[in-house]
């Protein structure tokens, strides 16, 4: 059932954030097609370790496509050639014997490379901290069923909330724009009644932080939506724009910091 293949890997190697880095070519032999892409890299790393060479550092954790830790631009595509799939859920049957695979880290000024294929995504953290929450303390909240939410609104909010924060949208965008990520969070709260009180302040402060981090602008190419492993839609960006312009044009207020 499972075929074996030999592959040539061109992998970005970079010792640390200051290093210039370069591509290094490796051979990956006897790779089974039912392996995941990261398991293939595990094998390459095992070989490197045995040879006394530094293994390739890459981010990964849950390996079930939900934590958002894994990344990699594989042959020019964030998370590899399959749509709707994270790198950890990508299997080697998507490749063929003798293929050359180019593996690069996410590239963005706001995502500096820490080592090899791992980048620093704390810019995403700071954007979330700027307003990606509802201001409620633990305790003293109303009963969960006291505010009915129409099912289609709850479902739509869920679709936005399902973002795993991996950064593939930034990696895919030719402008390294983070708008899909930011708009997903703004949308979730803009849709739900719980998010209404700070709806407009949130849009402004999160957009401000996004700009401050040095992400690019949206030119609506749709690459983010196409490459998003969990199918976040560009309608979120339109909603973010509405929220932001509404805030600016009609509701200029102080922004909480």
């Amino acid at each position, binding site marked *: 059932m499972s075929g074996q293949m030999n592959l040539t890997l061109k992998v970005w190697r970079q010792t640390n954030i200051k290093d210039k880095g370069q591509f290094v070519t490796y051979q990956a032999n006897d790779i089974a097609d039912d392996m995941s892409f990261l398991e293939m890299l595990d094998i390459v790393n095992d070989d490197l370790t045995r040879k006394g060479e530094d293994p390739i550092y890459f981010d990964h954790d849950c390996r079930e496509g939900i934590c958002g830790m894994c990344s990699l631009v594989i042959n020019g595509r964030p998370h590899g050639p399959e749509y709707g799939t994270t790198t950890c859920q990508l299997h080697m049957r998507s490749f063929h014997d003798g293929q050359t695979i180019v593996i690069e880290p996410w590239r*963005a000024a706001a995502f500096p490379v820490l080592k090899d294929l791992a980048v620093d995504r704390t810019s995403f953290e700071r954007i979330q901290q700027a307003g990606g929450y509802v201001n409620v303390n633990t305790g003293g909240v109303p009963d969960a069923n006291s505010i009915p939410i129409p099912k289609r609104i709850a479902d739509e909010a869920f679709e936005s909330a399902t973002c795993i924060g991996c950064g593939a949208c930034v990696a895919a965008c030719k402008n390294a*724009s983070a708008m899909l990520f930011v708009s997903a969070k703004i949308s979730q709260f803009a849709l739900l009644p719980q998010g209404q009180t700070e709806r407009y302040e949130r849009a402004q402060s999160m957009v401000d932080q996004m700009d401050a981090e040095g992400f690019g602008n949206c030119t609506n190419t*749709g690459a983010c939506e196409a490459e998003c492993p969990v199918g976040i839609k560009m309608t979120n960006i339109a909603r973010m*724009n509405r929220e932001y312009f509404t805030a600016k*044009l009609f509701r200029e207020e102080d922004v909480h910091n």
Partner: protein
Amino acid sequence: MSKSKPVLTSSLGKKLVMSLTGLFLCTFLIVHLIGNFQLFNDDLGYSFNNYAYFMTHFTPIKVVSYLLYASIIIHAVYALILTIKNKAARPIQYKETDGKANSTWNSRNMGILGTVLLIFIATHMQNFWFQYKFGTTPYVEYRTEIATGDRQTDQFDNVPDNYNGYLKTENDGIETIKSKDLYTQVAVTFKNPLLVLFYVVAMGALSFHLIHGFQSAFQTVGFNHRRYIGVIRAIGVWGFGVIIPVLFALMPLYFYFLK
């Protein structure tokens, strides 16, 4: 408490400027196209030259035209600013990219298309607007018998005093119009095959620019809803991507091949 940044300095604000100026330019295209239909009137430029005079001397239109020039400049300048920012957002490029897997070619190359259009606009203005205003556009005199509509047309060179390029008189049931002959300017200009080719190519660029740009402008201002996005896309693709550029492109072809 800190104030949020002013709207026009933000990324979204800049995009809003792109969007609004772009949409304004789109509406201009419609007006421009309808006006230029006069070129197809087989009246030796009578209606076209009248239209040209009206467009350049009617005050509200003049105001709008300054808005138009401003829009072009702002659209281009903001595009430049955004492009510089966007390039800075990815200082190290990928070794390999597979853009066609996730986006259309034109959406990724709006800058190139826009640059072609900017060069086109400059050429176009030089070809006609500049010549009409300051250049070597010839003169024409139309004598029309009002009762019958019979018309005689003459070139003339002896420009009267205080002549601003247009003079309309009515005597003995004959309407006399002395006008700058932009129509002939057009006809002559479009005998240059290289220029005709350039105009057609530029209309191709316009098509690709607007197929992405029109719906993108709506997305940016926040209009993206499954209820009507289909209509916006259809107008963008068929209206601004096909009909308008094709009709514009027909004009140089018409003069080159049929006149």
